[in-house]
């Protein structure tokens, strides 16, 4: 039976990811729907202590005993709202408490103008070996429109500092499909981004999230998203220009020089286990998915008083989990391994989906390549519609 198969299936042999969420920002961007707070008098010190406690708490937990972490990721918000030495301290603490691989990928997200050369040096020396810079656009007008609290020059400076501080694995985030943006404007931003010589780029289409100032402006017709044809052209430009530089698309919105793919994120798409710490962070260990309370004060209060973080839990049933693994896996250009899925979940994707899947393959939206099932160039732009059939 499937049930017994899964309960006997040991997930601990898989590489684990550790995610640490820092929920502060300099100011709130107009399009942002992530959990983070901005302003003056942020409870940074209190949060630091709380997080310290949450990490330490795991030293007594046997549930983590057999789990080996291959990657660590400090994300936000803006992690560099904490001082570099605090960040290093948290990293060291984590490495002491968790069983971390000898040569882990340790990433941190930084925003331009929130950390200088010295700070970056501290981070690199403290064990961070991959950095992801929130560049978003290389056009000052666009940055203003997005409500980003920095300018192009500051983004480029952060890049130079990171290089000089010894980071050899640097990623930048860029967004296209901005209100009023033309394909040629996007090409300029992209080319300028590529000139910064990152090893990795996360490039995604702006999605107006409900309740954000940007979504309101769009609804009020103050500004307009580019036409679908233009966005399609931007998607084309992206793939073409990156490929020309030897930077290959390996996930729907991620590109890298071969060998510089982000292992931590790839773990998510492979449906490998991960532990998230900090307010709003999510963990998925076996069939349990748990989200920490997304409120710094509630998070701190509970840690201080009860020593635990309130979580919202979701228990995945076996099939839901399997289907989730399929749709997440299809985000990667090399897709999912049918034998690995079978091995992990005891389900054969081909027979499980039957006609739905064979139709998608016949219609050339999906490709079977040996053991791998992946989206075709035809399927990639409409990945959602395809996944909605498989979810």
């Amino acid at each position, binding site marked *: 039976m499937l049930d017994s198969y899964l309960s006997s299936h040991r997930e601990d042999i898989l590489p684990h990811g550790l995610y640490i969420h820092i929920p502060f920002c300099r100011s709130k961007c107009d399009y942002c729907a992530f959990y983070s707070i901005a302003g003056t008098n942020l409870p940074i010190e209190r949060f630091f202590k709380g997080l310290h406690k949450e990490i330490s708490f795991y030293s007594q937990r046997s549930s983590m005993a057999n789990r080996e972490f291959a990657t660590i990721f400090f994300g936000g918000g803006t992690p560099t709202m904490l001082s570099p030495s605090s960040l290093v301290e948290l990293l060291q603490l984590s490495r002491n408490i968790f069983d971390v691989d000898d040569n882990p990928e340790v990433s941190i997200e930084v925003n331009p103008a929130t950390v200088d050369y010295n700070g970056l040096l501290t981070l690199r020396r403290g064990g961070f070996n991959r950095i992801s810079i929130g560049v978003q656009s290389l056009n000052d007008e666009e940055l203003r429109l997005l409500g980003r609290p920095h300018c192009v020059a500051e983004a480029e400076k952060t890049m130079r500092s990171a290089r000089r501080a010894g980071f050899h694995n640097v990623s930048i985030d860029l967004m296209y499909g901005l209100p009023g943006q033309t394909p040629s404007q996007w090409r300029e931003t992209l080319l300028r981004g590529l000139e910064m010589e990152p090893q990795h780029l996360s490039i995604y289409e702006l999605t107006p999230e409900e309740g954000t100032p940007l979504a309101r402006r769009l609804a009020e017709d103050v500004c307009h998203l580019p036409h679908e044809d233009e966005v399609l052209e931007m998607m084309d430009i992206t793939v073409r220009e990156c490929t020309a530089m030897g930077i290959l698309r390996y996930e729907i919105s991620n590109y890298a020089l071969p060998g510089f793919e982000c292992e931590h994120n790839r773990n998510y798409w492979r449906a490998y286990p991960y532990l998230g710490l900090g307010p709003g962070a*999510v963990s998925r260990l076996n069939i349990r998915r748990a989200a920490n309370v997304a409120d710094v004060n509630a998070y701190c209060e509970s840690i201080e008083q009860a020593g635990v973080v309130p979580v919202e839990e979701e228990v995945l049933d076996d099939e839901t989990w399997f289907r989730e693994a399929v749709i997440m896996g299809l985000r990667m250009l090399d897709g999912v391994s049918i034998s690995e899925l079978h091995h992990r979940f005891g389900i054969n994707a081909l027979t499980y989906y039957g006609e739905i899947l064979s139709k998608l393959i016949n219609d050339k939206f999906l490709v079977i390549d040996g053991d791998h099932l992946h989206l075709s160039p035809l399927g990639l732009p409409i990945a959602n519609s395809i996944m909605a059939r498989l979810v």
Partner: protein
Amino acid sequence: MKTIRNFSIIAHIDHGKSTLADRMIQMCGMVTDREFKDQLLDNMEIERERGITIKSQTICLPYTAKDGTKYTLNLVDTPGHVDFSYEVSRALASCEGALLLIDAAQGIEAQTLANLYLAMENDLDIIPVVNKIDLPSAEPEKVTEQIEEDLGMDGDTIKLCSAKTGKGVDDVLEAIVKYLPPPEGDPEAPLQALIFDANYDPYRGTIISCRIINGRLKTGDNIIFMSNGAEYKVEELGIFHFRREPQKELSAGEVGYIIAGVKTVSDTKPGDTITLKSAPCADPLEGFQEVQQVVFSSIYPISTDDYEDLAAALEKLKLNDAALTFQKDSSAALGFGFRCGFLGLLHLEVVQERLEREFGISLILTVPSVRYNFYLNDGRELIVDNPAHFPDPSTIDRVEEPYIKATILIPERYMGTVMTLCMERRGENTNYHYPMPGRIEFTCELPLAEVIYDFYDILKSVTQGYGSFDYELADYRGSDLVKLDFLVNGEPVDALSQLVHRTKARERGVRGCNRLKEEIPRQMFKIAIQAAIGGSFVARTNISALRKDVTAKCYGGDISRKRKLLEKQKAGKKRMKTVGNVDIPQSAFLAVLKSDQ
């Protein structure tokens, strides 16, 4: 019996029947302020959403008159929409009197007249009530005059009130006990109970609403349904307050419910007579007039597995909706389903919504049609209400289609507009007169097929809401019909076919293609939509392929949300019917009929 009054509140749509019922319920102390909500008796979800009454609803009110006498009032709130006049006629059959409400700002409208005539046919005593006198635009004197002159009612009996503020409602209550007669009937005669409505309860079987005409009935009595001789034992009986209120006995003149463990849904038929097994009555009551369905459409479950459930659901719904008819049907595109007859488009929509909400079945309804008579060359006669049964055109000698006689009431200034509308809809023999200064009563004979879909909506919009409309079926007249088919990616979708007058076929084809283009979402392929008459194409449009989704980033914290969004998208797809490889949403099947306005 002297202290019982059975009455209905009847009126044109929106004149305030349900609101007046609310006030009466409150004045009789039936609900606490905390329990109260507007239009209390409109308890179906669709009624509350649409703000209209669909089902007649009975409630029993204890009323102490000004002279101290205690009365029992059985109030029936009725719907005003033209599609539901059958509900009104059934309600009237269980009453001795009626309150005819007239909006003080709108005056007499088409259903005011239609419902008045229904009440007269039933030989009821009528109290005209001018409502909404609180409105700034109210003209109570003018409306009173209209009632006296146009309806020929005695000015003294007319009551004025505001159902909203409650002003004058006490006088209306007094008038009810004063002017309306108590029921007649003999409690000592053999039992005759008229079933006027029913409901299905999975635990208790059918809950039968009835009016005791003669005799009396107690718990434990053995009863017989006279139409089929089925026997049951009464488990519980009582009256309708807000909840069912069990009683020991119901006797002549009373209105209440009976529960008798009736699990065979088809045993209960509104209009049937219940009598006692031990002392049966000689003859059943007259029952209700057969109602004539005017619109036909097939219902298919979106998921073919739901066919059996749909069959059971229709049986149960029919208990509560006596005007619905259905029989088995099948379609190449949609599988097995039922051909149903309705009293109009609103009735059709209500049935669809009730099946979906109360029984949880997602449905496709095919393009509605009226019923045609075909006379074939070989002398045979064929009745066709389903485009799928359209005979080979070379075998047709002639065709007839149903006509109605429409009565339209409008202010004089809309004469030209309404005349044009009727001409566009192939109207004949238009006529008009001035029942009162400034208003025109316009009559016209129209093909039923031209009014079923949106005639009333368009009439409302071209007359800024001032036009009202009622109709009765007239006769069948010669017609020239063709079958218009729609093809999606080259495949004919039989459920979209329609029978149309030859002169309108091309226009309908073009319009239908455009509507389908609006309704069918872009998909992974380009979709061609074509309209054809007898194999030759008259219109075509394309829906271009979906070229991109917004596929944002997705990391650890977003996975759950992302999955749920996709699941929602998938569930939405389940509400569509796949024909060939094209997903056609439910709404598309009705939308092909929509006109351009």
